[in-house]
């Protein structure tokens, strides 16, 4: 099975906004994406309304079309509950594939996590 590790980090802020950084390391493909996706669904469903997610893709090497489908679904869920979902530090091949499927029209990509924080806080 292809290796992927997902970690979550709360972003502290003065406001009452709930923001988490989701860092994905490795590759998301057919062999692992269904299992890894469950972890992110659990965080979204456990947080209630108003959760914003910053996906730190600095160490994400590959994502297939199914993982893009999941990212779209997380965007829909987070947006419908009043939060934001953005991507930070994605490698050029990841930005390229997000562009070709049209997801960059929905999900904004930022060159750094700090800029992504400013956008969602």
């Amino acid at each position: 099975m292809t290796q992927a590790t997902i970690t979550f980090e709360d972003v502290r802020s003065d406001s009452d906004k709930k923001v988490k950084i989701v860092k994905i390391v490795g590759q998301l493909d057919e062999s692992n994406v269904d299992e890894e996706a469950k972890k992110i669904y659990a965080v979204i469903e456990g947080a209630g309304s108003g959760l914003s997610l910053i996906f730190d893709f600095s160490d994400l090497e590959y994502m297939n079309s199914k993982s893009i489908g999941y990212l779209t679904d997380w965007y829909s869920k987070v947006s419908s509950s009043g939060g934001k979902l953005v991507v930070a530090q994605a490698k050029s091949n990841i930005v390229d594939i997000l562009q070709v499927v049209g997801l960059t029209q929905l999900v904004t990509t930022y060159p750094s996590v700090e800029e992504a924080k400013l956008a969602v806080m």
Partner: protein
Amino acid sequence: MIYNQIRNMIASGNQSQVQVPQAQQQPEPVQDSTKEPVKITIILPTNAYFLSGIRDFTLTMTKNMTGFSEQWAYRFQSVVDELCNNAIEHGSEKGQNVTISFVNIPDDSLEVIVEDSGTGASKYTAAQMNNLVKERISMMQGQYLGLRGRGLPKIVAEWTDELLFEDIEGGGLRVRVKKYLRSKEDAVLSSSGDPTHVMLT
């Protein structure tokens, strides 16, 4: 490194097979050897476990042998992954094989051919695949929020010049995709919308 990985897969009894380039199997006097087609065929068990190795191979081979840029090497990686995923998910049942062939004419084109055994529970014919791709391309003209269905109409179709489905005599589906090397296009980090794309039906 990837060649060693593939050799290791063979040695470990995974029934994988790599054919050496045809040009080496059938040496003939050639006047311009740089334009001779090079064909590499890999046979994999129907298991997504092996896809990362195929992606590594595609990336390395495209970067080092074809004349395509690194950006296109990554794009081919995705195209091959999506085609193999479909063959594993729909076309070949467990215990069967998926065959992937790369045909490269250096500095001219790269063709990828993926064949399944036609034993999958949800297999499709070539005619069904043609209709499916047309439907999905149409469906994705607007904002598409679905979980599945982007692989063929967005990644494969938009990053290749030709897409052809063929029924294999005796069962199975063969998918051929081809991308021609164009230096100007290849040099630019463009997004989607290759205006030269042709769907062969």
